[in-house]
């Protein structure tokens, strides 16, 4: 059974009497441990898909199951808890709180899951070690470079040990060199068994992931799966 099961999901907006189908009958599965990218030009609906998968938004139609929970009909409080416990977000603009220190930023998700101060600190430090920033824990985000800030954001996404991490254009605000380092970090995390979904418009970035789902006009246009092509045997043990 897949970690994420999306079945016939549509998202319809009404703008001045006009019906806009941001997502049109999308179905897909994401398995635990997968490293995939969702690509498409802006306005294609890829962000809408990520928001719905990330429990930030609800679909107009269709069903979604995340880790055996039907999230398309869950109340908002439960969605907040799922976002907190099972999902990690990495954004293009890092989205760290500038007034908090790096450590406090990483601790933030645990604050909302009611974890005690000591454990919070230890786990946040462990997450920072994973991204090699444990020596910057007392700094403010704005004292760090863009790449470092994005690594803090990744540490924050990791800290509650989520089932899946959504990264929305994680390299979009970085120069190509640091962007490369961030992608390498994601690759490493994937090798450790994390489930990661990259959302991007750049096919070059999408190329790092074995599986690529291209969205166009709210529909899945093409899907490339390295496992099915037999290119990556490690990621598809069931097929070998």
């Amino acid at each position, binding site marked *: 059974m897949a970690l994420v099961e999306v079945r016939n999901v549509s998202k319809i907006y009404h703008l001045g009497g006009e019906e806009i189908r941001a997502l049109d009958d999308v179905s897909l599965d994401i398995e635990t441990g997968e490293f995939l990218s969702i690509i498409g030009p802006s306005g294609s609906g890829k962000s809408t898909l990520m*928001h719905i998968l990330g429990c930030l938004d609800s679909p107009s139609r269709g069903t979604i199951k995340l880790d055996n929970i039907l999230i398309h009909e869950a109340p*908002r409080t439960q969605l907040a808890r799922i*976002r*907190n*416990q099972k999902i990690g977000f990495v954004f293009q603009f890092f*989205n760290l709180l500038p*007034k908090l220190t790096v450590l406090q930023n990483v601790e933030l*998700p645990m604050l*909302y899951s009611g974890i005690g101060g000591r454990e919070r600190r230890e786990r946040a430090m462990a997450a920072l070690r994973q991204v090699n920033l444990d020596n910057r824990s007392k700094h403010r985000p704005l004292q760090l470079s863009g790449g470092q800030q994005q690594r803090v954001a990744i540490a*924050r996404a990791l800290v509650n040990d989520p089932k899946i991490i959504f990264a929305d254009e994680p390299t979009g605000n970085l120069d190509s060199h640091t962007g490369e380092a961030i992608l390498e970090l994601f690759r490493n995390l994937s090798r450790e068994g994390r489930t990661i979904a990259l959302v991007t418009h750049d096919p070059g970035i999408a190329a790092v992931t074995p599986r690529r789902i291209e969205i166009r006009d709210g529909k899945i246009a093409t899907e490339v799966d390295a496992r099915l092509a037999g290119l990556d045997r490690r990621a598809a043990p069931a097929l070998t």
Partner: protein
Amino acid sequence: MNLLNAISIGFKEIWAHKFRSLLTMLGIILGVSSLVAMSAMVKGMENGMREALIAIGGLEKVRIEEQDIPPGQKHLTDQAVGLTLVDYEALRKGAPLIESVTPEIRLNRVMLSRAGRSFNPWNFIGTTPAALEMNQHVVEHGRMFNDIDLENARSVCVIGTLIRDELFGSPEELGYEYNPVGETINANGQPLRIIGMFQHYESEQERKLRLLERNTPQSQTGPARSRGWGGRRGGSFVFRMKNATIYIPITTMLIKFRAGSTTNSAPENRLSSLYIRIASIDKLEPALQQAKNVLMHTHRGIEDFAFQTQENWAEQITVSIRNARLSGGIIAIISLVVGGIGIMNIMLASITERIREIGIRKAIGASNFNVFVQIIVESVVIALLGGIAGLITSNLLVRLLMIISPTENTPVITPAAMAVAFGFSAMVGVLAGLIPALKAAKLDPIQALRYE
């Protein structure tokens, strides 16, 4: 997220915008301090009034005075005897619920004089020795006249300090307390020997001021100057009146001051008033009934007298205190509300500024309730800090008021007033935070994250 975290986030937010938070708090600070200061002043006023009430004899003292005869008995006017010493004796012997009785004959327009100085005393009264207790007088020097003085109608008197000050010189003038016992003064040409002097009556506030002045060295040179506001000597009305009292035996009054006052050489024996003191205030009604029965008998059924209790005054005190409290309270509450609106304004501005932060918090798992609590707590923390600062400020404010307004009523800050003001500030914090917190909680996370 527990409450402690929310509070610490609130504090951080306030600390991050120190100046803005201070300005926001200012409204609450002023509201709380004006509420506390107002209630302190009203309390001081109340204390002053109660002190004065006790100084004139308390609630147990009832005055009996002559009154117009009721219309039904008009034809008996020429038989009405008025209050006389007969009533005094009858009440003393015939009314067990009455603890003591004192008759008073009061003479107006008396000129006291001695060695070129003269003074018109407030109360020139002929009475019995029991008046000492009745009117809460304390003799400091010498003695009160006794029954023998009374029996022999001796020309003696007991005076208040103000009379001493006017005829012999005040301690401020002389630099020491002059004891006039043994001296003789003239009252309307009649010599009276001073055999006693009462203590100096003053309110708590006056006493403190006087002690303070005594302790500060006199640096003033040249002629004495008025200290403004008519000087402090004498003090508030009730105490001034009490200090300007002179008592003589009622018999002396009848013989020396009443006999020659009319063409008839027989002394005019009507009393100005008769005071009775009842044992306890709960027996007021039966005691008055008893007194009435006795007096109806001595007056042969003609009701030409009336009872004046201090209850009216006590009631007036209650009413005026309530009015002062109400008007002051309304003003203070309005300023608290204005402070609350200030908080709401700032919180609304602050969440607009932090829409993105709220989006981030929601994305990483804050529920609507978490966000709501965070904003409410921030608002309450501002209000409570303002409340605490207001309580401190109110102390200074009260001190300032004491300096700039020479009131004889010391403002008293009561713990109850402080608790009420603090409670109000907390309530204002919650109410002011409500709308901003609801607004923040309802933000859509996606739109909040996109907000620039």
